[in-house]
């Protein structure tokens, strides 16, 4: 597991931006972290890293935002309002968390697959997980449980 620390929202965005550069079509990236840990900030940088000029905003209520204009179509999901895999299927989101036509970044991924599903040997369409943790007001720890970062 690769672990880095960021010291501002801008640095968390930069981490997302740099991660996005190595992303391949069909990848699903699952984000875990408390309220305010910086998940949406990470995705904002991620979209920028794909080259998308889209304004990234929280999909908590919409469940799904789609951003175009980058080298891959980006699906930004937020499972915060959903509690079980069955509800996620019921909302019509299963394809986006398994085989996106582009790349998916999924906040609160643990609602889909539990806390600690391993991602060793991940291929296209396999889940790659990233954990964001609040260390103090400015500092975040970002743990990448995946190859290709």
């Amino acid at each position, binding site marked *: 597991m690769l672990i880095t620390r960021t010291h501002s929202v801008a640095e968390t965005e930069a981490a997302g931006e740099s991660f996005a550069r190595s992303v391949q079509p069909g990848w699903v990236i699952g984000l875990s972290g408390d*309220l305010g840990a910086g998940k*949406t900030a990470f995705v904002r940088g991620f979209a920028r890293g794909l080259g998308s000029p889209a304004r990234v*905003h929280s999909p*908590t*209520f919409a469940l*799904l935002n*789609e951003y175009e204009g980058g080298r891959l179509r980006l699906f930004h999901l937020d499972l915060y309002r959903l509690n079980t895999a069955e509800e996620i299927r*019921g*909302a019509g*989101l299963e394809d986006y968390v398994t085989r996106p036509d582009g790349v998916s970044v999924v906040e609160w991924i643990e609602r889909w697959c539990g806390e600690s599903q391993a991602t060793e040997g991940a291929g296209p369409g396999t889940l790659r997980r990233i954990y964001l943790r609040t260390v103090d007001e400015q500092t975040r720890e970002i743990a990448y449980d995946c190859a290709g970062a």
Partner: protein
Amino acid sequence: MLLALETSCDETSAAVLRDGVILANVVASQVRLHAEYGGVVPELATREHLRNLLPVVHEALDQAGASIGDLTAVAATRGPGLPAALMAGFTSAQALAFARGLPLYGVHHHEAHLYSPWIGGQPPAAQFDQFEPNVSLIVSGGHTMLVHVRGELDHTVIGSTLDDAAGECFDKVSKLLGLPYPGGPLLDRLAAEGNPAAFEFPRPLLAEPNFDFSFSGLKTSVRYFLEKHPDLADDPQALRDLCASVQAAIVEVLVAKTVRAARQLGVKCVTASGGVSCNSGLRRELELRCAKRGLRLRVAEKRLCTDNAAMIGVLAERQIRAGKAPTPFDEETRPGWSLER
């Protein structure tokens, strides 16, 4: 007579209108449907829109004293929204319109919000005779945006949230406070008995000379505040003060930017719609500031603040009147539809 459907997010809704008069406006979560239809099913499940649609449409037609044969047009939300949810309502409307040989109108959900404050009276009807150019605040769990409405069917988005919507901030702060979800309405009630000046929270982007919003940092600042004062929310009065202080921060930014936009754009009217426009603190502050600045204020009636098909129908009827062409049957939903285009 027009039938309108709305299924862009959680709510399944159907409305029946004739010449601007809303004959029926049925929202699945707000009514108890007849037992023969299996009752109201849980929200959030897109496939449940399909189960809800037929009973909701029947209920709306019944309330309007109408039948399918009376319809002359069909409208539905085409976007933006959750793809599978939009598809449920839009393709149902397409099928009905196609089968009955009626014109279909695919409507933009946010554009429809712009006209919900203009619905009033009994029976409720679109009051376009009272319409005037305005700045419109659309504020809900999913959206926070300011729109300059120059005239009927003529608007420009002038600002929106850079991260979280205001309603999302209310709900997530409630969660941090240990209130049951969705906590926005409960926070509003607690705030009514609290001191809004008890604690100081940031007013994000308030001083910026633009009309954008940001609420993610405010949410995070509440989190740090609670970490520093772990027992504070256990004291009922301190909890009420905290709710009032957070609400005051959110409301001040929303109201100040809305009023500033109206003054800069030289319009004399402000409107508000969306779920958060039910918030009593926001309604009160909008009334105070608009009155002080000589601005006319129209806030959507409470039952029309949240997602509903009546506003979809009101906009569709207005578009028909303006000579807009129907949406061809081979067109699809537009989940990412921006209000600009």
